């Protein structure tokens, strides 16, 4: 039984050791008030549960250390001892009930705290899930100020933001653990998620409801920036796409409009107006490609266009069949779309 005690201690030690780690997609490294509240809740529950678990294990293991009593008639029981045990069991049961009531109240009030976060949100962003990318639309009363982009959500740091989430195909779930808990994107339903980032930074999120072949490669980024930077970004994004600057890029521009790209994608300021795939108007200003699958670079862009089905099998981006020159030209054009 010593080994049992050993593994208990080792387990506890491991847990403490590992839990110290942090990450850019971790519930234990909160960067916003909602995640902070939740991280506190997680630690509190964990601590309490660990104590309860240790107590139960102690009661299980301690009798083993005692000298075994002689084997007697199994039906002859000491009535007084049984009564004593009954009292202890009832007390333990009462303690359990008390703890559970406490935890229920705690989570009820935590839930209320979370609900209060976005009550004065000035910015509403509509996030629509698609297989396997995120459409992001910044709502505005003026139609010419509505911005549509994909996969990356810029928000002003320190301000609450309201996300209205839904889906047009299957159920997805929006989850950026450093900032907030998750919320499902359900076709036919609209859900509201309020979140706030305390400090500027990049927070990774990922689809958390199984949504088909490429569920694993459906990431998003929340980029929190100081208000002036955010405003500048928004203004920049609202402009139509940059005109091609080199001959190669011009060739790429022409090819983009002649080839299958134009059937699905939109580039503001050109005739490309597809809405079933991510908006590419400012694709080069984004950090990643294909919903966080690849980092944005010329090489990755070329690789993605040349063989999307090798990189993200099952994704809706088809193999287009371009020759080397055409591929280079299109990449050169897209690279200029800052």
């Amino acid at each position, binding site marked *: 039984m010593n080994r049992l005690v050993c593994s208990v201690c080792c387990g506890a030690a491991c847990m403490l050791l590992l839990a110290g780690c942090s990450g850019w997609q971790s519930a234990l490294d909160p960067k916003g008030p909602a995640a902070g509240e939740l991280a506190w809740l997680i630690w509190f529950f964990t601590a309490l549960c660990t104590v309860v678990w240790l107590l139960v294990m102690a009661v299980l293991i301690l009798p083993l250390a005692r000298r075994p009593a002689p084997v007697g008639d199994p039906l002859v029981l000491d009535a007084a001892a049984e009564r004593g045990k009954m009292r202890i069991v009832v007390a333990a049961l009462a303690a359990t009930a008390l703890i559970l009531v406490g935890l229920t109240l705690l989570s009820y009030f935590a839930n209320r705290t979370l609900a209060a976060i976005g009550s004065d949100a000035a910015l509403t962003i509509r996030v629509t899930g698609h297989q396997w990318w995120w459409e992001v639309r910044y709502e505005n009363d003026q139609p010419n100020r509505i911005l549509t982009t994909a996969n990356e959500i810029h928000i002003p740091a320190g301000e609450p933001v309201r996300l209205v989430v839904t889906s047009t195909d299957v159920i997805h779930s929006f989850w950026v653990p450093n900032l907030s808990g998750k919320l499902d994107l359900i*076709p036919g339903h609209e859900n509201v998620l309020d979140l706030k980032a305390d400090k500027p930074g990049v927070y990774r999120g990922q689809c958390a409801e199984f949504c088909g*072949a490429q569920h694993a490669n459906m990431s998003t980024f929340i980029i929190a920036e100081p208000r002036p930077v955010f405003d500048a970004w928004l203004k920049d994004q609202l402009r139509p796409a940059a005109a091609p600057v080199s001959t190669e890029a011009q060739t790429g521009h022409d090819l983009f409009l*002649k*080839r*299958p790209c*134009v*059937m*699905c994608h939109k580039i503001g300021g050109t005739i490309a107006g597809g809405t*079933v795939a991510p908006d590419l108007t400012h694709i080069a200003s984004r950090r990643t490609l294909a919903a966080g699958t690849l980092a944005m670079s010329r090489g990755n862009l070329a690789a993605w266009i040349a063989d999307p*089905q*090798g990189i993200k*099998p*099952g*994704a*809706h981006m*088809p*193999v*287009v*069949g371009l020759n080397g020159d055409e591929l280079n030209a299109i990449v050169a054009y897209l690279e200029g779309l800052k």
Partner: protein
Amino acid sequence: MNRGLPCVLSAMLVLAACQREERDTRPQSALGSGDQPAAVTALEPGGQRPASSNNKAGVFEANAFHLSEGKRLFNWFNCSGCHANGGGGMGPALMDQKWLYGSSIESIHATIRDGRPNGMPSFRDKIPDDQIWELAAFVRALSGNAPKSAAPSRDDDMMPHPSENRLPDAATLGKSP
């Protein structure tokens, strides 16, 4: 015979299932027609039929994944703009057994790829070749020409007509003249 029958049956089941359930997301290599000839055709009503391909095109029709992809693309590429969910509008209906330019999958593929007189535009270069095959297979499914076990079911959308796997058989729709 006693043992042969189950063997044959299970072999058939195996083959049918493989063909129906496979999800090949890069079928071009299978068809060997990734490169397309020059964009000049001599299309005319009642003209020559395209040579039937090496029969791999038929794979698209029997494959549930390709048919469903075809259905998705039919909506994405707004084919309904003219063909109105297959019922016909500005363009001809696709749910009947009338085929102006031939009912084989190769003919439909050629129609989409090269266009036809009186309105059907050419999608050569605009749609990758394998997706044209998927669309052609789905168009045939619209008139009950795909196996029922592979044909798409309804969409999560308003319902303009019974889903393809519930359509009457091609035979009962009436023959083309």
